């Protein structure tokens, strides 16, 4: 009990230091939140399918752990497989430079009880494999804790989302028509030149 208290105190102290230097590192955050994400089976489609996220404090932590928590932000994060050869999605320990979680699902003031949110996957979410993570922020808007629906190695409970293509039939038709017009116009010009040349010779 005392050891836990000491651990907690040192965590809080560490995060204070981190705040002073402005560089909060992910590895310093305690995993005190429990997050689950449920969705239908199979490949999820952006702009169509929904994900239901439930988050709350892990009750096995002592009371007072969440005293600093003011806001919870739930985010959609890339799984390691979708980060390969894509430096713009890299996981870095310093949170201000970390690019793992680029999509915000919801932001809510912190509450003691378990919270739910049903999120329709937005249309600018790319095709990739994801998990869900929730960050707890204090009053100074610094991360102080987190929770995620997967394990520490980010291998379980991952789900795939397929993006919208962004294409429309009207765009396809316009592309083809304009292209054809360019070629036909060129041939038209050549034809006109030949006719002019023949006229000049006569």
């Amino acid at each position, binding site marked *: 009990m005392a050891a836990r208290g000491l651990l907690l105190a040192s965590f809080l102290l560490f995060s204070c230091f981190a705040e002073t230097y402005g560089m909060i590192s992910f590895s310093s955050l305690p995993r005190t939140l429990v997050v689950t994400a449920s969705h239908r089976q199979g490949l999820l489609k952006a702009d169509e399918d929904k994900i239901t996220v439930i988050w709350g404090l892990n009750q096995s932590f002592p009371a007072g752990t969440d005293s600093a928590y003011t806001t919870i932000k739930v985010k959609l994060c890339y799984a390691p497989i979708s980060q390969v050869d894509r430096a*713009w999605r890299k996981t870095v320990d310093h949170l201000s430079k970390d690019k793992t979680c680029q999509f915000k699902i919801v932001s809510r003031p912190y509450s003691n009880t378990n919270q739910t949110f049903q999120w329709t996957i937005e249309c*600018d979410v*790319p095709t990739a494999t994801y998990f869900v993570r929730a960050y707890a922020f204090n009053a100074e808007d610094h991360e102080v804790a987190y929770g995620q629906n997967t394990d520490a190695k980010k291998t379980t409970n991952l789900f795939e989302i397929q*993006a919208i*293509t962004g*294409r*429309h039939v009207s765009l396809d038709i316009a592309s083809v028509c304009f292209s054809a017009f360019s070629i036909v116009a060129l041939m038209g010009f050549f034809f006109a030149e030949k006719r002019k040349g023949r006229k000049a010779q006569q």
Partner: protein
Amino acid sequence: MEISSTITETQPQKFALPVDSEHKATEFRLFSVAAPHMRAFHLSWISFFACFVSTFAAPPLLPIIRDNLNLTATDIGNAGVASVSGAVFARIAMGTACDLFGPRLASASLILLTAPAVYFTSIASSPVSFLLVRFFTGFSLATFVSTQFWMSSMFSTPVVGTANGVAAGWGNLGGGATQLIMPLVFSVIRDIGAVKFTAWRIAFFIPALFQTLAAFAILIFGQDLPDGNYQRLQKSGAKQKDKFSRVFYHGITNYRGWILALTYGYCFGVELTVDNIIAEYFYDRFNLKLHTAGIIAASFGLANLFSRPAGGIISDRMASRFGMRGRLWALWIIQTLGGVFCIILGQVGSLSASIIVMIIFSVFVQAACGLTFGVVPFVSRRSLGVISGMTGGGGNVGAILTQLIFFKGSKYSKETGITLMGVMIVCCTLPIFLIYFPQWGGMFCGPSSEKIATEEDYYLSEWSSNEKEKGLHQASLKFADNSRSERGRRVHSAAMPSNGTPPTTV
């Protein structure tokens, strides 16, 4: 004998600008649109600008496109290489086409044939289709050759460097302008209501339409030579139709063309590479917004407004004092300095220092491009198109090599790649030492004291005695006479050459 009388038979044409014996303008008046010289200038730089905008329209929007099409860093690198590969052979083919059919038809045809690739970018749906559209769009960069050829046909030796430099520089501006235009068009379309993944697709119609309209303008308002179009001149006998095999042969056997191809790969090729990587570099390394990264990246290409023309002007000024040797020295010094600043760019870590060094680097590298095309018009007269095409193609080869070696996949960080690219620039600029003209000299040697030491001898060596008997070499003769200014200040005190006087004056 008959040829010259055919030329003087038609009424002496009045030109808005002062002209030489080939009717090429001896002055360059930027704000005039007088036909045929300045009009050709404005048509060629605008159409070349349009092609540059299209070819580099994708890079500023890559942060969106890479998510839509699920691209990896390797896919992006490959597409970047593809975008500059098509033009390698297209430029050589374009050079030959200009020699044979004239720059007006050659450039307009290419621009209209590559416009579909830009339209089809809107419907790309995978890494492969993305690579293909970038590959075919890149062919349009061959209009560079027709631009230079057209300027070399319309402007005389005292201003050819300036004309070439301004036309190419203002065309290259497209690479910078597109970094501003595309994010702007994208955000306007998105604000109107389209989602991100559709907005970028619609945005591509803008460069495509611009390209199509530019080609129409060339066909309607343009003219190949001061005296008229190739077709009409060839039919009336005023211009001889040359043989492809001879033109090609004399181009590729001139070693100076190969050296310039290599060195151009390390000024222009580097410029193309930077156009492809710089927006992503600033976006990812300094965590900027797409819009901001686009503005900074744009300033690299926008420096072309004055830096490449400055290169051309410096080349002409050096020539008036020191002749061809001055042109070569200026080229070597400025391109090497470009390499040095590239090395520094990869080393600096702060945003403001990066921007400043990048701008200095861009000025030197682009001026070197302008200086290169102050030398190219003199390498060959008969095969001007092929030499221009080889040099231009070499530029693209340099872009391919640098992107493949330093910017593909995740082997080097972008900063390291940039530094190493700078080292390669310095090394690949050294071959300029080897360029030597018997009549004018090279960097370290003066003109030859042997018998082959006049401009006429150099340019007429491209024609066989058979061809000379038929009088096919007249244009080269005129050019040789006009190029005597490449001797530098000594021209005024030099006596006229005793041999090589054209028989037609008899």
